[in-house]
């Protein structure tokens, strides 16, 4: 029988559910967010309330014991929204108990073999969006960026831009998940948005200059469409000011 631990969909909620399910057989556990649970015959879902403080001190503890890679990996599993994320995280934590961080090297182990590519994909998309996210000026004077990422990566992307563009206010919207990150130059907050902006903002003068730059910087004799698409898959083009 599968044990279902429901959480509220926040990172703290996911971590709290992990803590609650620690020690049980990962093969019989699922940790969906409330409302995303697969109906399970005879299963008794258990709702785990988010406990941010406990979750945070646990991550700190894990980081001290095994290094900062481990909390990051758990967060990547959370961002992945994979139905297997919870079970994988629990199995991984068990491996850590046995092997310590050495577990990461055990690349032929079924758990590591599933976990690493998933984390790599999440990491790749975070890195991609750090480059491909486009801000446009909106009224009142602020910057706005729209995205539709495969994974739920608004949080790490927002952290990146808090460091990079900390001097001005901005708004970042995950159109698909209807979530937004708002930075007011002092505080970063995450909110649900009912209505998301339709399509991209019409180009202003700066955007037109950028379009010109983009066209001219390509060397006509070296045109290579396949290579462009390989690096920059078309699903990211929708919000690019240059295309």
């Amino acid at each position, binding site marked *: 029988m599968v044990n279902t631990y429901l959480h509220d969909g926040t990172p703290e909620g996911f971590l709290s559910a992990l803590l609650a399910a620690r020690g049980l057989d990962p093969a019989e556990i699922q940790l969906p967010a409330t409302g995303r649970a697969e109906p399970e015959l005879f299963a008794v879902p258990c709702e785990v309330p988010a406990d941010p403080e406990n979750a945070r001190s646990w991550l700190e503890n894990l980081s001290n014991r095994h290094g900062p890679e481990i909390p990051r990996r758990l967060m990547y599993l959370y961002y992945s929204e994979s139905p297997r994320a919870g079970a994988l995280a629990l199995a991984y934590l068990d491996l850590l108990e046995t092997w310590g961080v050495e577990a990461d*090297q*055990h*690349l*032929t*182990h079924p758990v590591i*073999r599933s976990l690493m590519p998933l984390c790599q994909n999440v990491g790749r998309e975070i*890195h991609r969006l*750090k*480059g*491909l*996210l*486009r*801000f*446009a*000026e909106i009224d009142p004077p602020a*910057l706005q*960026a729209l995205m539709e990422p495969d994974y739920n990566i608004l949080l790490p992307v927002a952290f990146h*831009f808090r*460091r*990079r*563009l900390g*001097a*001005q206010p901005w708004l970042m919207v995950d159109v698909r998940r209807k979530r937004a990150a708002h930075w007011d130059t002092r505080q970063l907050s995450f909110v649900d948005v009912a209505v998301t902006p339709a399509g991209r903002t019409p180009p202003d003068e*700066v*955007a037109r*200059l*950028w379009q*010109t*730059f*983009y*066209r*001219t*910087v*390509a*060397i*006509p*004799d*070296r*045109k*290579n*469409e*396949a*290579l*462009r698409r*390989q*690096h*920059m898959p078309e699903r990211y083009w929708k919000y*690019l*000011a*240059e295309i």
Partner: protein
Amino acid sequence: MLTAAARYDASCASSGSQRSGPGVGNTSVSGICHSWSEDGRCISLLKILMTNHCIFDCAYCANRRSNDVPRASFTPEEVVKLTVEFYKRNYIEGLFLSSGIWPSPQETMERMLAIVRTLRREEKFHGYIHLKAIPGAPPDLLHQAGELVDRLSVNIELPSEASLKTLAPQKHKASILAPMGQIAQEIVTHKEERRVLRTAPRFAPAGQSTQLIIGASPESDRQILQLSKGLYDKFDLKRVYYSAYIPVNQDARLQTADKPDLLREHRMYQADWLVRLYGFEVEQLVDEASPQLDRELDPKAMWALRHPHYFPLDVQRASYEQLIRVPGLGLRSARRLVSARRFGHLRWEDLPRLGVVMKRARFFLSCTGRTPDRVPAGTELRQHLAKAEKQALTQLEFAW
């Protein structure tokens, strides 16, 4: 127009530096690509020429003095504004500023320096800046530039002094190598100073690079690779970029070409990586008898074909240094292999999961003491490898 003129500079790296502070922006150690243009090359920096006016008359260059092309210049304010506005919208990771030489090397360098200084001091811009050092500019200007930017580069362009003399008569080996030597020296001394005093300024923390044009002059692949190796060793360059010559001028002094030889450029990069990161000697890839890289097969496969006694390697026992010489194994897959085998014997079916390209590697490895049923040798092996290579190149859209 000044972008079209700058697009032949191959470098767009934005990595290797860590910079931040109050104001606008920071740099990322790993570098970030922001877009890819129609030619499939990554765009991470606003790559422009300050001006395409030039007193030099280099045969290969579209902006040479004797060419009748429209001329234009940016004002410093325009460059600064464009950089900051593009950066704020996350179009770019920073600025790559180069320039034609006008009216003199010193004045050109001073003007470029003024732009960089405004960006750093007045706009408090902490993004990435790559500055092209102008051959013949005085050392103190170079010194000031190094303390403000992330990367400095001096383009060699032509791989021998003889070619420089014919094709770029105003450039001399000395006027190129002197600034490279100075940059290398200052990077070292600044690092030492910072070890004593944390607040001492950095000098071009992302290092220096250069670019060589392939195919405009008659040098062999071997000569060019030896030159690169020398540059890596002597000046500790981060990268040497190779640029297949694109005919922009009609000139009897140039080698003739209708199209840029992208395949040769690709092979040069492959060989460069093998020498820089895989522990190969230049002479192991190209020697006096065959000074050109093979076009049909990549240099690592060619080496493997010439050294059949080196193989097969046992995946369980071969060292990392041995494994990275196997065609189809890269630095990462070799590292993974070495990690994973500590936990037990690897099986054939484990290898592709670790990132090994079996189409090539299976001819050179043995697993639990066994090789695949039949391993071809000689010409037959070459044909197998050539088939795999052709598929890979077609994916990269190389014309055959």
